[in-house]
């Protein structure tokens, strides 16, 4: 059991700050995913939690213990690595048992826990093998087993699934979620894969450039992005942006850009406040359009189809609208040819507005 608190934590390598003024409170037994592009500081944050990297400034607390100076072997953490990092010269059994042996756990207890974990992960038949004789998925299971048997207070995972193929990744995701339910540990999981983050996390921490961009549940992060970075990072195909301006027409607030005119619903207009004439960046998620909806004024966009990319369950449609190429996700039954001019109805309740200069959301400021 452990609550993890970062208080104004900064990590520098020489003059380069890779994590800046990080404040994060991870609750006991929570599943937190650190999400961001490579180089955003998420792995460094994980390494600091493990004690593998020193905290340059600020404080890191496990419950009521300040752990800044505590080496990894004195912290109750286990970690799963992207490359698995199994010991090549030890058998699977010894790999899993190693952490327990180092902690002087009794022999019979080591054996019981190793066999228990092996049974759960269905690798009992592999115990005598060497890592080099295993497939990627099997190695991943051994790496999980090695962390599991420790029964640590904090379970750290650094992109554990990114070396697996797509199908295996999805089934392992489910297993990790199951493991979390079973283990009574705090999980901190690093990934750049939005789908992993959205499916696994109790809370997601989106990071970029060493700074936290937003902290929230999957729902909050996706539906109420705090800025353009968060909005762009989640969603496939990514969110579309249209630069334009807001204008008050009678009682209603409109978004205008060239021929495009969208009516902003009351609920959103209220959040935007008085901003008539203000330039904004409109965010329109790829799936928030409907080709079957009513083509009423104020909630329709028209454009020329530039590409049709079927992806099985649905299709991605590229459309040129007012010299901009936007991408939408539409139903697979829709048959449009490249070059055709079509209209799509927009779910205006799900529009996003950002400040064009700062990129901050005008709707959801934290």
């Amino acid at each position, binding site marked *: 059991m452990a609550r993890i608190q970062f208080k104004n934590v900064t990590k520098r390598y020489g003059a380069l700050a890779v994590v800046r003024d990080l404040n994060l409170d991870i609750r006991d037994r929570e599943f937190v995913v650190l999400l961001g592009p490579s180089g955003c500081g998420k792995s460094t944050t994980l390494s600091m939690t493990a004690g593998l990297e020193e905290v340059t400034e600020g404080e890191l607390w496990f419950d009521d213990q300040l752990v800044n100076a505590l080496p990894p072997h004195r912290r109750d953490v286990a970690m799963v690595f992207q490359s698995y990092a199994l010991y090549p010269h030890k058998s699977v059994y010894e790999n899993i048992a190693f*952490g327990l042996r180092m902690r002087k756990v009794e022999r019979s207890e080591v054996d019981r826990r190793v066999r228990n974990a092996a049974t759960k992960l269905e690798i009992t038949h592999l115990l005598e093998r060497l890592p080099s004789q295993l497939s990627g998925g099997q190695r991943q299971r051994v790496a999980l087993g090695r962390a599991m048997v420790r029964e640590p207070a904090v379970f750290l995972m650094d992109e554990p699934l990114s070396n697996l193929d797509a199908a295996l990744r999805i089934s392992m995701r489910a297993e990790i979620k199951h493991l979390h339910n079973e283990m009574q540990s705090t999980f901190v999981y690093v990934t750049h894969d939005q789908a992993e983050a959205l499916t696994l996390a109790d809370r997601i921490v989106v990071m970029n450039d060493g700074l936290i961009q937003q902290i929230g549940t999957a729902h909050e992060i996706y539906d109420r992005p705090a800025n353009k970075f968060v909005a762009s990072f989640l969603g496939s195909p990514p969110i579309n942006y249209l630069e334009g301006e807001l204008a008050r027409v009678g009682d209603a607030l409109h978004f205008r850009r060239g021929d495009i005119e969208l009516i902003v619903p009351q609920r959103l207009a209220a959040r935007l406040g008085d901003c008539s004439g203000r330039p904004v960046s409109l965010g329109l998620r790829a799936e928030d359009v409907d080709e079957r909806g009513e083509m009423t004024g104020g909630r329709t966009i028209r454009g020329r189809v530039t590409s049709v990319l079927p992806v099985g369950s649905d299709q991605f449609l590229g459309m040129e609208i007012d010299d901009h190429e936007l991408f939408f996700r539409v139903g697979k039954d829709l048959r449009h040819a490249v070059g055709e001019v079509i209209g799509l109805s927009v779910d205006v309740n799900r529009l996003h507005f950002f400040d064009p200069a700062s990129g901050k959301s005008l709707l959801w400021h934290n």
Partner: protein
Amino acid sequence: MRPNTPAASAAVTSQRLARPSFARIGRGLLLLTASVVFLAYVLFPVAWLVSSSFQNEHEIVSKPPHWLPHQPTAQNFAAIFEAGDKTVTYETRRKADPSSGGFIPSTASNLLPAMGNSLIVACSVVVLNLLIGVPAAYAMAKIRFRGRQVSIYAILTTRVIPDIALVVPFFLFIRNLGLLDSIWSLIITYLAVTVPFSVFILVSYFESLPDELDKAARVDGCSRWQTLTKVFLPLAVPSLVAVVLFAFLASWNEFLLALMFTQTPKSQTLPIVVASFTSDFTISFSFINAAGVLAIIPPVILALVFERYIVSGLTAGAVKG
């Protein structure tokens, strides 16, 4: 990439068989000839050394030379092991006729003690190389600290300075320590010469092992020292063998520094004593060759013991992966 499935290797084999057999035979012949020439070039001096060590002084200078001894004799070896009894002095030197053999250099009795000195020095240098080199290399390869790059470059730089340039500073250093004519002078200076290279071999090997392995071990509960001994050392055996061989051979063969620092049989090593045989009243080549045969035995034993690691060890670290 090497084919590792039976099907793939079968395909390669059939491809080979399908080639014109003329080219295959030609290639085989070429390789065979080249190997034989190379082997002869490398082994001939050793063969002559061994052969002549079993000849007497008369036979060794015969024309044409005898490639194999016509009258094999163990007198040279016997002389080495009984050297104490047959000392030759200025007065008695005419009694032994060099051309008929039986002549023994006046310093012959120093040979076995010198061999002992050589062994002590070489083994100490090997052990200390490992004790110093392994932790140093691990630290440089896996721990980020201020001055890490500088120390790696400093170590590399010392390898491009020829030993002879260091003789004078070494000599002053050793004299000031009062270690002239002590085997400590050799151990200390040989370490200065060998440790940088050992560290260099080991750093490149440790760097080729993934950082995540180091991290995994530490999260699993190892201190830095335990990470080194329990995870890295078992994986580094080939490069450790390379270090052992290198340090042993460098110390065993070293001549220049030993010539400077040793004056009496108390500290003289094998190369020095063997060389001293050529500055005697008369030179007995067969005796020197017998000493040479003894001198190559320990390195050969070492090479045989570590044979299966040598090739991988010498290349380990040189190429990553």
